[in-house]
């Protein structure tokens, strides 16, 4: 195939669909009890050096407990898929866990401002970066989910974002139109927080799915944290709602308030004060180190973290803030 132009940065993951098929051929499809702990899931599925992707949208429906545990287990040299990664990226940078990133939105927390520490990390030049856009990364996951080695889109064309990517420009065999060809990405592991799951890993999500349906299908291993368990009968009563089926999932853990301090639609709003505190302490590396000790490293469980952040009273406050939206 004629390649019109190509980006100059490294492709961090192999887009060979047959290697991915070889992995998925061996993956069990049995509907077994996949309950475990966050600690065990991180030990088992997130080794040093693996390529990680996080579900949700930065500080919305994120698996915070998994991110904290990655820090506690001192993971290093992770690859990261950074599509609108905000608080998740901030946490991983705080733990110095990443050494390469497919970036489309990093170091920022949207309207809240930029993360001083994530900027320090990225400005050090020690983290290898390949540029993309949010849609480009979605198309890359979608291609993987479809079992093919590339997808096409009409973004990135003509820009430095393209030049600093690992994409290629090709022409349509029917119309001659130019497209950016985006290589499939099969992350080694994805962690996704959902509203409801059964013990086998069948999941319900309420509200926007962002790129998580593609991600759950693309990732070789999937860790699910869930606000609550539901019985398998609840899944079977309305199979239209199942957005992630059990055979994609390796581990499932019940973590109430699991997206805290992020927003969980229909459940609780984000804790803007706590997120602001992060941005404040990050200005001073020593302050940040103390903060991390207090809130992550010296903490034994996610429940303990919730207690430190205000416990039931704070959670009730965030539920009330979110409560303006409809519960079913």
């Amino acid at each position, binding site marked *: 195939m004629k390649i019109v132009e190509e980006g100059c940065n490294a492709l961090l993951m192999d887009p060979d669909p047959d290697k991915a098929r070889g992995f998925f051929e061996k993956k069990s499809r049995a509907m077994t009890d996949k309950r475990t702990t966050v600690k065990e899931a991180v030990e088992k599925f997130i080794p040093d050096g693996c390529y990680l992707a996080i579900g*949700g*949208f*930065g*500080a*919305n429906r994120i698996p915070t407990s998994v991110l904290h545990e990655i820090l506690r287990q001192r993971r290093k040299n992770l690859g990261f898929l950074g*599509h*609108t990664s905000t608080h998740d990226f901030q946490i991983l940078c705080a733990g110095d866990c990443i050494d390469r990133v497919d*970036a*489309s*939105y*990093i*170091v*920022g927390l*949207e*309207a809240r401002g*930029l993360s001083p520490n994530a*900027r320090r990390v*990225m*400005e*050090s*030049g020690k983290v290898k*970066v390949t*540029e*993309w*856009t*949010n*849609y*480009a990364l*979605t*198309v890359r996951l*979608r291609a993987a989910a479809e079992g093919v080695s590339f997808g096409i*889109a*009409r*973004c*990135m*064309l*003509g*820009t*430095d*974002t393209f030049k*600093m990517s690992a994409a290629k*420009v090709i022409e349509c065999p029917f119309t001659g*139109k130019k497209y*950016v060809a985006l290589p499939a990405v099969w992350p080694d592991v994805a962690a996704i927080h959902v509203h409801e799951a059964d013990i086998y890993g069948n999941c319900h999500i*309420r*509200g*926007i*799915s*962002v*790129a998580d*349906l593609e991600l759950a299908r693309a990732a070789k291993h999937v860790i699910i944290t869930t606000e609550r368990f539901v019985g398998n009968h609840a899944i079977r009563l309305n199979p239209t709602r199942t957005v992630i089926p059990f055979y994609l999932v390796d581990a499932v853990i019940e973590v109430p308030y699991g997206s805290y301090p992020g*927003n969980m*639609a*229909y459940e609780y*709003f*984000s804790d*803007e004060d706590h997120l602001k505190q992060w941005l404040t302490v990050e200005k001073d590396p020593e302050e940040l180190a103390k903060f991390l000790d207090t809130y992550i490293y010296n903490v034994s469980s996610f429940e303990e973290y919730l207690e430190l952040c205000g416990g039931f009273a704070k959670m009730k406050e965030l539920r009330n803030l979110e409560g*303006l*939206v*409809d519960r079913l």
Partner: protein
Amino acid sequence: MAPEYRMMEMMICAASRYLEDGRTVAVGTGAPCAAAMLAQKMNAPNLVILFEAGGVAPTMPQMPISVGDSRTFFRGIMAAGMSEMMSTCCRGLVDYAFLGGAEIDKYGNINSTVVGDFYKPKVRFPGSGGANDFASMCWRTLIMTVHTKSRFVEKVGFLTTPGYLTGPGAREAAGLPPNTGPYKIITDLAVLGFDEETKVMQVESIHPGVERDQVRDATGFDLIMPDFIQTTPPPSDSELRILRGEVDPLRLVIGR
């Protein structure tokens, strides 16, 4: 007697007037969201607001903090995902998108990635996010930004998001869909558009009380400045009443 207003209010009102009824607009948080909400309550009741993470046409009780938070689909028409929203842009169903950025050049190209060497940057910004996607695939891009010489540069240090690239025909040559591109830039000094022929940025109106030279001095390149330039109509009483009373009662955006 003309009402008093803040510059952010002027910008929001000016932006809102470009949004036609019965059209779609992809917005971020803050001022663009306020502009779209104001337009719905003024001139464009059937304007459809979209968010890149999946929210469609919410009934927003308050401004979202994130383009993916629950406000972006609260009592909305649909809560979908990124692929759905961007595909809708690519199919030609999204008319307007709002962008910001750290640097913008005379062709409307935007930098939101790095200052300095890419591999060891002086400043690292977030990167494209969905900005490049919107600017590539939506019909008309609107940019809201403060107007300073360090932002309005001859050539962006890193071209994150496409404006008219290197000038006439460059978008089409790169493969971007025809008849798309930056439409208006709304700053704290003026509203700017692009010359039909050269695709170079030109002043379309200057906000009340702002001098021509102020605009020129705050711009790091040769701006097209016609002899006769209109004054941007200031916020009307009803625009201000709705903006302050209904769109942003907590002054999250206009209070800045």
